[in-house]
């Protein structure tokens, strides 16, 4: 829409202010992780000491390792189950399909506080209790809807006649999936997997209720540390986390390509 030049410029300035609001705190946090002062005093004197300290902090290292392997396990399970469900939704017509698709909404829409506490109650009731298995069960459930949604979006660009053509040439259901469907939706699956990894890796609330005290994921350890008091060491690990999760999302956006062709 054609607008006055002045208004247009004002709009750009405004956009800049909003971006500053979104990014400045993160930058400040990152900069402070390179500051020598334990009490965040200015001016900044550069050091990488806090990162070196991280390397010797066994609690953080353990938590980082837990976060990574839990996220990897979650990614594999959620991507496999989610992709299979998305393909079936695409391929078959059956009664109750709409209801099943609507059921994907609650895990995303209900506040994680509610889901997390409900999981805690249920897992204790069935004797599973807290710990990595409980955390993984929870993370997969939260990641599944995202995988299904992303893969389904990619499948919308897929011509169902390709599957029919493969079947008419004698390919079994599995051969059709392997040689025609999966290659086409590969980028969607990769994007879905990255989302799943991010959901798990960044997940705090559900991990907080389900992780075993003393053997937790990174966000839980950071939360506990923050409540005891801030140290630049937290800045350091937080900076690492934000760099990882933003890179993952940039990668996911590239693969998801928001519906474009590859």
């Amino acid at each position, binding site marked *: 829409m054609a607008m006055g030049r002045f208004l247009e410029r004002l709009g750009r300035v405004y956009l800049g202010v909003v971006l500053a609001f979104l990014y400045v705190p993160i930058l400040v946090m990152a900069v402070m992780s390179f500051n020598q002062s334990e009490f965040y005093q200015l001016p900044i004197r550069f050091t990488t000491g806090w990162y070196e300290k991280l390397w010797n902090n066994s609690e953080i290292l353990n938590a980082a390792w837990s976060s990574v392997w839990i996220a990897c396990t979650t990614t594999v399970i959620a991507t496999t189950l989610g992709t299979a469900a998305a393909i079936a939704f695409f391929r078959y017509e059956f009664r109750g399909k709409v209801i099943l698709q609507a059921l994907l909404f609650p895990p995303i829409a209900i506040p994680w506080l509610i889901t997390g506490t409900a999981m805690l109650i249920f897992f204790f009731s069935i004797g599973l209790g807290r710990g990595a298995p409980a955390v993984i069960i929870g993370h997969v459930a939260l990641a599944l809807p995202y995988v299904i949604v992303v893969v389904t979006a990619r499948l919308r660009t897929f*011509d169902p006649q390709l599957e029919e053509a*493969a079947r*008419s*040439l*004698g390919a079994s259901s599995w051969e059709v999936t392997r040689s025609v469907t999966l290659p086409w939706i590969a980028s969607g699956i990769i994007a879905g997997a990255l989302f799943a990894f991010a959901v798990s890796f960044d997940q705090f609330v559900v991990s907080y209720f389900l992780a075993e005290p003393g053997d937790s994921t990174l966000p839980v350890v950071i939360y506990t540390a923050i409540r005891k008091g801030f140290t630049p060491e937290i800045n350091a690990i937080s900076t690492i986390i934000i760099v990882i999760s933003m890179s993952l999302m940039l990668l996911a956006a590239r693969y998801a390509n928001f519906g474009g062709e590859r």
Partner: protein
Amino acid sequence: MAGVRVANINKHFGAMKALDDVSLDFADGEFFGLLGPSGSGKTTLLRVIAGFLFADSGSVVIGDQPVERVPVEKREIGMVFQNYALFPNMSIADNVGFGLRVRKQSRAEIARNVAQALELVQLGHLGERRPHQLSGGQRQRVALARAIVTQPRVLLLDEPLSALDKALRVDMQIELKRIQREVGITTIFVTHDQEEALTLSDRIGILKDGRLVQTGTPHDMYHAPVNEFAAGFLGEANIFKGAVGASAMTLADGSTIRWADHQQDARPPGAIAVRPESVIVSAKRPDEHPHMNCLKASIRQKIFAGPTVTYLLEWQDQPIKILAKEGEMKDIPDAGDVWINWPAEKSIAIPAG
């Protein structure tokens, strides 16, 4: 290779009856065109034969094998889809070789058969390309090569030429016919284009509202349609109705038209159809002749289309269409009253009811 027989096929989509007791025999090696307007059930019938749809009742037999319980991938059919459905992630050679790989042929065998199939469709040099690098006509040929390389028992074509532009379509019709003859495979194809059906088919079946209206050779279908729909759908027809006597029909304006005796069925016809190209226009009233039909009509429009000229006329408030070769009818005014006439043997008697 084998013939195909469908018997008493019924198929509903919800409340809509897509196929209503359809029975048809497709002879071994025959090129059969299923023709009908959209929604007539022609594609549904093709998909029932392919196995993508399952009929509510009725039987499908390919060769001697009843296939109602056989899934698509075990039916040994070849199919060409409307938009070709070439696998975008594979080269042309891999596309054509897909069915052979599924059948676990050796690499050498696959290479040989693929090369042969591509040679047949005259694309031997394009094996390494990707589908998106090919033109529409080339993709069409690849789709055909892919469908026949597995030596299926029957070849099914779903509106195979509809995505091509007109000039290319005519070339491909000739090409398709050549390949079908060379391979000798039973071929069933669906089209809504009557000209395409006439050009390609050994036999045609016309469907309407899920029912089979008529089957026959293009020649028979064109010259002896069983009802007004068949007459109008396969080619164009001017239809006349009136009081039917022993060998003549008296029209509303009192004039009579006749039809040739040999066409006459036991029952008197319900209507007379005349093809546009059978009618001659003349400025003066021709001499009375017992075997010529003659009506007075007025010219509304003349459409020049190069080799042919179409005259749109009006007789008794009924539009009449006449097709003539350019230069054939001279001295015809651009407007005003003229005489239209045609020999009695060009009258098509359409059975009543």
